[in-house]
């Protein structure tokens, strides 16, 4: 295996609605920031991989236009995934393992504000039997939370504590959309939104983007004083149909964690892409995180959830903390699909 590391990361100041600039204008400053962060000219980038969904913009091939933010001339080697940016990073990592690529730039963006995001995301369900019901992701997450509460896997008190801890951390993150001191008991006094979920159990609706630069071997050492080495990365997928899965646990995360080697050493911090509060409890269990692991020091997706991007941000946040000496070993997790259908686990280490 070739050693590959995250060497640079940039993200937007996430917001509920960015209505004055388009996606290209949102991405462009980040490209400059990420390249400046790794101190490299654009022509050192061997491969560009992006992540987005045309359903969010409501425009076919909007991802092709987003390439203007990078500048694809002379022609570049490029790819795109209709998944979270963490999977774009995975594709770039695989390409590096093939040996021809030394430096790759990954970008992801998602504006949820142009459409009614709950209706838009209902379109990810199978179009024959579930799509016509317009079942949206909040309702599906509520089904999952109900199963977990009934099974005794977690409690509403634990869910409120997850929200309070993330909000507190979000207050220290200048890029987060939400943050502040909240009392878990006060949260539980709030009315239910889509029962058993309260509004704060759900992620905010966010417009945002992020860019990560990864590099292999000596290139990584050249471009970063302390690269965040990817020691393991794996992703697994479960059945689409919710009725086929045990929604109280995340088997795909357990498998990906085992293959990425999460348990091979102590974990200092974890960035978990669990958009709903109860999902953080499920993912934490699936990763086997010990007590004392700093979970979501950024505030996580409960404080900013740009779709197609929030998973890549977890990798960027974890890597930045490693590079700044805020930890030696971190776990970053990304999810996609309804009720944690697909999960990616990435183990990052400093040297």
């Amino acid at each position: 295996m070739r050693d590959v590391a995250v060497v640079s990361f940039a993200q937007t100041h996430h917001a509920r609605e960015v209505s004055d600039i388009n996606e290209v204008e949102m991405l462009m400053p980040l490209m400059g920031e990420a390249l400046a962060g790794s101190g490299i000219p654009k022509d050192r980038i061997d491969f560009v991989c992006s992540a987005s969904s045309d359903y969010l913009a409501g425009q076919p091939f909007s991802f092709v236009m987003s390439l203007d933010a990078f500048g694809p001339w002379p022609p570049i080697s490029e790819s795109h995934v209709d998944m979270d940016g963490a999977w774009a990073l995975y594709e770039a990592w695989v390409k590096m393992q093939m040996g021809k690529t030394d430096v790759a730039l990954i970008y992801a963006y998602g504006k949820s504000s142009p459409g009614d995001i709950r209706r838009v995301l209902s379109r990810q369900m199978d179009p024959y039997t579930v799509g016509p019901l317009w079942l949206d992701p909040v309702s599906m997450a509520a089904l999952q939370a109900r199963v977990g509460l009934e099974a005794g896997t977690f409690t509403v008190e634990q869910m409120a504590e997850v929200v309070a801890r993330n909000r507190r951390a979000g207050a220290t993150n200048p890029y987060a959309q939400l943050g502040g001191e909240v009392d878990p008991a006060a949260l539980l006094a709030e009315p239910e939104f889509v029962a058993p979920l309260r509004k704060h159990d759900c992620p905010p609706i966010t417009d945002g983007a992020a860019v990560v630069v990864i590099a292999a071997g000596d290139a990584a050492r050249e471009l970063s004083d302390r690269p965040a080495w990817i020691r393991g990365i794996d992703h697994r997928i479960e059945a689409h149909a919710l009725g086929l899965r045990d929604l109280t646990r995340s088997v795909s995360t357990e498998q990906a964690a085992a293959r990425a080697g999460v348990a091979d050493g102590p974990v200092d911090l974890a960035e978990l892409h669990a958009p709903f509060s109860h999902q953080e409890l499920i993912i934490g269990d699936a990763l086997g995180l010990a007590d004392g692991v700093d979970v979501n020091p950024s505030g996580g997706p409960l404080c900013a959830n740009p779709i197609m991007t929030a998973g890549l941000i977890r990798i960027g946040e974890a890597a930045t903390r490693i590079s700044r000496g805020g930890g030696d070993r971190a776990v970053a997790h990304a999810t996609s699909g309804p009720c944690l259908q697909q999960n990616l686990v990435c183990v990052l280490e400093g040297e």
Partner: protein
Amino acid sequence: MSDVTLPASLQGVEPVKSIRTPARLDYVYTAGRASSRFLHNVANKRLVGQRCPVCHKVYVPPRGSCPTDGVPTEEDVELAHTGTVTSFCVVNVAFMGTLMEIPYVGALILLDGSDIPIMHLIQEVPYDQVHSGMRVEAVWVPDDEIGPTLESIRHFRPNGEPDASFESYKDNA
């Protein structure tokens, strides 16, 4: 399909061959700063491109970035309402909903002062006389119909100047 054996309860039942699941999603489109500024200028009967600070090319309509260098384009450049036909096609197909009488000419027009051509229609000249290098000018709709859309230019027409040299538009040919 023929080797699938249906359970007894489904035997003889007419198979579902297709379903319709209508879906409608509404979006608010954000043109962005560069396109918004361009369209507002069009509403004021002005054509304003933007110059790349690295390669100095002038883009119209501006997208806010240089696709070659990937840097923001911030310098506005006022462009003439005249230009040169770099390429053209003669449309002989009546597309659904088109208001144009066929045949008509769609052309790439390099506005004076810019470095990439815009697409527009050429009218007020027989279609078989349109050619690359032809000098043309914008014909705007009446002032009270002008708005933030390129339809504010009804079409381009020959402006009577002699043909531009190939050298002057070879980078766009």
